[in-house]
């Protein structure tokens, strides 16, 4: 699983050679460790005039005790002052070249038409080269669908192209995200902004997140232990990405109920036992699986707060050579079983108030992949499930979202032929594979009780892979 190329280019000689011949030079990404601040380094906050998100952003930055700088512009300074944020002043025209930032955050919500997109350029052009290693570029906008005028919606939609391009330009493990905040959803920003700023989003880049108003509130949450008192079901929890998910949710203080097939019972018990969770051994494709799961959750835990549909398989063959078993197995495990489980849990109201359903899609589900018609169909179906279920579950006070992992370093990718593996690793903005923990951190962000405003999102954990959207 080790990335020998990355190790090589980060040796002194490797750095010189890779630079001379123009090879990708992936850096070791900073990843979250418990007890770390959300962001370690100064944050530059800017805003287009008239933006409604700078105030909410300033509040979050004050809450995480960030070292914030802003341009000396009245609207930004007022937002900072209103948040009791003792922001320092930054003027790119007077600042020394070596003054750098861990994050650049810009409220573009005030941009009302395409001409005002100039504000984005004006803020980032003189500052983008001041982004530090594993730094963050975050643009906040208004969800185009929530814009009142066509020109405003057009300009806000335009931000996607900007952010995705910045993601491809920034170096040294830095990432770029666009956060669309819907009408009256300013108060929902905190969990997403914390995630995007922190090393938890190390392998997430070029993504667009939509936040909407919700009835839930993040008030009183312990950001170090956001899942305290919560029960989380994780399918396929014995190894790989599922194991990482179980670990991260347990770190966030959830009681994890690990689920896997009978053949992996020992591994499951080892994994979950270490985390102080409990196990449930069954095959999710069994006809009675949904009922057994629901009953177990109700009887042993009185319900569940987080459901992570992680279990998944691949059975690759080109379509002409694909037998029905391969097709059925993949569709059944990766999609149909999840639908049936959700239906049962929702019908019996097993998922508690402010609960979360988190699914695992895939880059193949977005871009398609030769030899994976079955897999890509199932994973695109997961996206469909998230999109179609978002409104119905929201009515019950729940959310449903999906992660779409790209090239994640697992036993599965380690078994790939070298050319395929190297292409998968390098063909992304971060020029390296992700780790299972990167997927897990993204799921933990969706799972947080503070993420009530995040619903119906599909976020790729792919280092901004060149493949797919």
């Amino acid at each position, binding site marked *: 699983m080790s990335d020998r190329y990355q190790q090589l280019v980060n040796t002194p000689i490797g750095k010189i050679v890779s630079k001379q011949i123009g090879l990708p030079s992936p850096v070791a990404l900073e990843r979250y460790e418990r007890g770390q601040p959300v962001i370690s380094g100064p944050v530059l906050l800017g805003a287009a005039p008239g933006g409604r998100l700078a105030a909410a952003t300033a509040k979050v930055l004050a809450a995480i005790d960030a070292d914030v700088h802003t341009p000396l512009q009245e609207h930004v300074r007022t937002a900072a002052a209103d948040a009791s*944020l003792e922001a*320092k002043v930054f*003027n790119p025209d007077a600042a020394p070249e070596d003054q750098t930032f861990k994050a650049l955050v810009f409220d573009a919500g005030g941009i009302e038409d395409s001409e005002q997109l100039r504000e984005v350029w004006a803020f980032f052009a003189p500052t983008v080269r001041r982004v530090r290693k594993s730094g963050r570029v975050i643009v906040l906008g208004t969800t185009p669908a929530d814009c009142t005028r066509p020109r405003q919606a057009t300009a806000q939609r335009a931000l996607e192209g900007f952010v995705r391009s910045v993601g491809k330009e920034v170096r040294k493990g830095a990432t770029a995200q666009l956060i669309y905040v819907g009408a009256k959803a300013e108060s929902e920003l905190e969990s997403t902004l914390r995630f995007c700023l922190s090393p938890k989003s190390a392998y997430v880049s070029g993504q667009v997140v939509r936040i909407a108003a919700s009835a839930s509130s993040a008030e009183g949450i312990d950001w170090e232990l956001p899942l305290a008192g919560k029960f989380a079901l994780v399918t396929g929890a014995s190894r790989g990405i599922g194991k990482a998910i179980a670990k991260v949710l347990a770190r966030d203080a959830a009681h994890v109920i690990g689920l896997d097939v009978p053949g992996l019972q020992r591994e499951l018990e080892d994994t979950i036992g270490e985390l102080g969770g409990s196990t449930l051994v069954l095959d999710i494709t069994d006809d009675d699986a949904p009922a057994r799961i629901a009953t177990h959750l109700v009887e042993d835990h009185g319900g569940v707060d987080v459901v992570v549909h992680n279990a998944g398989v691949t059975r690759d063959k080109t379509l002409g050579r694909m037998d029905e078993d391969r097709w059925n197995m993949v569709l059944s495990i990766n999609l149909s079983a999840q639908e049936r489980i959700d239906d049962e849990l929702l019908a019996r109201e097993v998922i508690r108030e402010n609960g979360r359903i988190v699914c695992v899609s895939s880059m193949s589900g977005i871009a398609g992949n030769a030899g994976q018609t079955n897999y890509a169909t199932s994973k695109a179906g997961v996206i469909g499930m998230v999109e179609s279920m978002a409104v119905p579950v929201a009515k019950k006070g729940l959310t449903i979202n999906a992660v779409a992992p790209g090239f994640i370093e697992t036993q599965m990718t380690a078994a790939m032929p070298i050319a395929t593996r190297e292409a998968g690793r390098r063909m992304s903005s971060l020029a390296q594979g992700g780790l299972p923990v990167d997927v897990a951190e993204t799921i933990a962000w969706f799972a947080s009780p503070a993420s009530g405003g995040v619903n119906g999102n599909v976020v790729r954990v792919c280092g901004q892979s060149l493949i797919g959207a």
Partner: protein
Amino acid sequence: MNASARRVAVLGGIRIPFARQNGPYARASNQDMLTATLEALISKFSLEDEVLGEVAAGGVLKHSRDFNLTRESALGTRLNPHTPAYDLQQACGTGLEAAILVANKIALGQIDSGIAGGFDTTSDAPIAINEDLRGVLLELNRANSNAARLKALAKVRPQQIVPQLPRNAEPRTGLSMGEHAAITAKEWGVERGEQDELTVRSHKNLAAAYDTGFLDDLVVPFLGLERDQNLRPDTSVEKLARLKPVFGGEQGTMTAGNSTPLSDGASAVLLAGEEWAAAHDMPVQAYIVDAQTAAVDHVHKREGLLMAPTYAVPTLLARNGLGLGDFDFYEIHEAFASQVLCTLKAWKDPVYCRERLGLEGPLGEIDVDKLNTHGGSLAAGHPFGATGGRIVASLAKTLSELDPAAHPHRPGRGLISICAAGGLGVTAIMEAAA
């Protein structure tokens, strides 16, 4: 100010032209300069043999022998020797603080008239003997036997010949005032261009003040110097742009052009109660209405060394029910162009005003056309103790020339703001007499 207090009139002032360090006043002492200035004031107001309430003056760089310099100077003038005098010192705020002290005594009825002045020489600077040698000499002085005297003298070492020079550094930070100002300038993102523009405006305004004759009765020639030596009427942003930074490192924005030079000079103003002025048939130019000093914690909280006036002014305005915009003229001492710009930026910054000054919102903005309208310290130079007197005299005359029709419902007003070493700030409000 206390309602029962008497109004304090500024009758006028005078100063000698300010010289650059080691310029025409290189051999003039503080006492020479103050005496000449007091003499000029005496001539201007016919104060020969007059007994005034007091003369209060001070300077920053003084010799230890000059413990009673103001009294000694006054004794050397044609003032009646029965006029009391004393020295005071509050760094660059000395001159304005002297005026405030005299004004307060007049307001309380303790005196009816007085002169407030200030002076400084950076050329004829005090040089102290080496601290080690001083210790040896004091020990020698304490010795009561020849053996003890010999023992003390045996401690004299060649290196003790190195004298102790006055340091242009803050005692508690070791940084020069310019370095402190450079830190604050960086914090506020002050650009080189805006500093140079402010500097040019200062020179143009001072040059115009000479050319129009405004300064004819405010400046009296001394030792052959007729105008401030530092004044460069033909300076420009382009010329200033060629100067190298002197503070803040290679990427710094502060140069010898947009910082005040070390200078020599003295100033004095005549203050009085209204009755005294009327009895002496002297027209009132302006009134000193109120004053406020403040200090910042530049040591532990690392606040800007020269930002204390940003604290003093809001207090002063609140006590007088005024807003920052309610003035016709603003006299902000230009220790450095960046200091003025930082002060202006701070007063209109919602974050600074709320978090530091405890205000609800920004204090406000100043119309730069009303700022230092007859030049500032960048052009005139800044002999530390003399700047307050220069400003009070210039503002009083400016207010006296203001057309009363400009504000039928309120007097013309001026605001003075002076930053000083040690994190101090001295500010005052003056009103036109009409």
